[in-house]
């Protein structure tokens, strides 16, 4: 099968949905001729024109509101926030408007909208261009949060996100943009709400997503050679969590390490730990171990960054700790 880059897979998803459905629009900064900061929208302005690829001034809160207004009127906007760090500027619209209208107006409107944004550290971007902030969004009712870990999933998942009649936060990863994977030519969808077992195993489950899922898979292959088999569960959906899939895996392996690129405190790992403590404590043979960022900003220097961002060694240490408890 052909292999394509992660950002190209996203680009294809956008192109296919825009060709199929006239109501799909792109809106964001520098998404036209420039093609977006990470080239996800490259070529789309040329193909679909200015009425479908709407470039905005640097007004994040207001263009999020504009997208919400468009969605109320039946369009399906796909918003790009250039770096996830900047989503802070649009937080009011997302929190108090986009995600509230369907419920608070008692179903009179719905907001079919996707917010795409690159997250994660990529060697030197520094404190305001490297954050993985998805944990801030999982507690917002009315918002679905998803994050793909490979090009195949990215393409099918983005198409599902655009098809969904509700707001979806679609978290991309800057390092993953430059990774390749098999993507068929034929059309397919990946469901928004299902976790996937990426590797089966019996000794311990690593729960992860996005770029950290790829690191977790590397750790699992490494350990297999030493006779330890890890199960690796790709969450895909961070909100709502696929509780069934999570608990089923824990019942099987009885040990769990959760790996993500956000801060440990109040993070995705914290939420999963709480879920397991409530729903599955009787199956666990060892404490839940979280791998995440310490509570520090992400330093710019690559010599410093690597100390705070999880890597294979940190995951391996956590797995060791859990297995040897």
């Amino acid at each position, binding site marked *: 099968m052909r292999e394509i880059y992660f950002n190209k897979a996203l680009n294809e998803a956008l192109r296919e949905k825009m060709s199929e459905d006239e109501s799909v629009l792109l809106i964001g900064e520098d998404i036209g001729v420039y093609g977006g900061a990470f080239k996800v929208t490259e070529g789309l302005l040329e193909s679909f024109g200015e009425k479908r690829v709407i470039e905005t001034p640097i007004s994040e809160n*207001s263009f999020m509101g504009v997208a919400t*207004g*468009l*969605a109320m*009127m*039946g369009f399906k906007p796909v918003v790009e926030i250039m770096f996830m760090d900047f989503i802070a500027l649009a937080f009011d619209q997302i929190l*108090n408007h986009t995600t509230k*209208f369907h419920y*608070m107006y008692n179903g009179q409107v719905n907001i079919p909208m996707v917010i795409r944004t690159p997250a994660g550290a990529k060697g030197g971007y520094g404190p305001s261009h490297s954050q993985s902030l998805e944990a801030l969004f999982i507690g917002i009712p009315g918002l679905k949060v998803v994050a793909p870990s490979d090009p195949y999933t990215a393409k099918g998942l983005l198409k599902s996100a655009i098809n969904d009649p*509700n707001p979806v936060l679609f978290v991309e990863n800057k390092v993953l943009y430059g990774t390749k994977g098999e993507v068929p030519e034929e059309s397919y969808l990946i469901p928004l709400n299902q976790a996937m077992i990426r590797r089966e195993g019996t000794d311990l489950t690593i729960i992860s997503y996005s770029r950290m899922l790829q690191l977790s898979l590397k750790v699992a292959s490494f350990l297999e050679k030493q006779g330890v088999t890890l199960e690796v569960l790709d969450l895909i959906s961070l909100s709502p969590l696929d509780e069934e899939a999570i608990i089923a895996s824990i019942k099987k392996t009885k040990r769990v390490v959760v790996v993500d690129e956000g801060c440990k405190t109040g993070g995705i790992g914290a939420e999963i730990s709480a879920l397991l403590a409530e729903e599955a404590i009787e199956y666990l043979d060892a404490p839940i171990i979280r791998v995440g960022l310490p509570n520090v900003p992400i330093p710019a220097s690559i010599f410093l960054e690597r100390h705070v961002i999880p890597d294979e060694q940190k995951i391996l240490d956590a797995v060791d700790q859990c297995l040897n408890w």
Partner: protein
Amino acid sequence: MTTKIGEQKLLEIFGKMTLIRSFEQKINWLFSKGMIGGTSHLYIGQEAVAVGVCHVLRDDDYVLSTHRGHGHLLAKGGDPKKLMAELMGKKSGYCGGKGGTQHLCAKDINFLGTNGLTAGAIPIATGVALAIKLSNSNNLVVSFFGDGASNHGNFHESLNMASIWKLPIIFLCENNLYAMSLPVSKSTSIMDIYLRAASYSMKGLPCDGMDVFSVISTVEEAVRWVRAGNGPCLVEAKTYRFCGHSKSDQLKYRTREEENAWKKRDPIKLLKMHMLDSKIEPSVLETIEEEQMNLVEEAVKYAQDDDPPVARVASSGVFLNA
């Protein structure tokens, strides 16, 4: 005050302004009796603005509103019964009790929401206008907001976008001189907010918000401009809220003299005087006042008799099922 509006239309305008006044007075009373919870921002004093604006609009035009939105909704043609039921948290309210005063929408009349966040609706209104433009329709959007909201980033960002995209939208600033307790003189770099339009190469028009004819003729000009495809317009209506900002307001930041001066220009009184001068019988106006009061009483009765929503409603409808 002068106008070319015919008698029948004048009576309708008077009726709507009176309805809003009576409705809000009733809300004030219901609050004092503990029959409505939460908070409420009354529109008393500003009736000429909403009614004047909506008089000029077509049914297919859109309105987006603020925290002080009962008047906007009623002026757009909202049903006082469903509004009252919503404020009382009942099942037949506009949003089944989920929204309340600051979060209510009446899609059937193109009223896309009151809003709990100061300036929160301005970008959304801009998006609705963009949708209209992309659909090649010739209806338009009115985005109401206050003087306070005109200091918010949303205002500036949205006016800029509306201008560069030439959107069919009227930004309607109700300058009632205060944002809660903060006077315009302390909060705003300019006393005439409509002049801010210049920064966005936009048409800006002021009007006397206590004189419904001034509002109407100004908004007519704005509507002509916008419907002709010239892009947006910023209209400032100079007005005054007669009550406190909300329930907790002790009105320490303004003087009784100032209040009385504005109350002499009560928009309903001014209109009434004009109508009496134009030889409309006082009894005709009294009948209208009575009718409107009755509508409000009926709304209260309707809302009181209405059932509370069932518990299941609270936890359902977060997502639309695909």
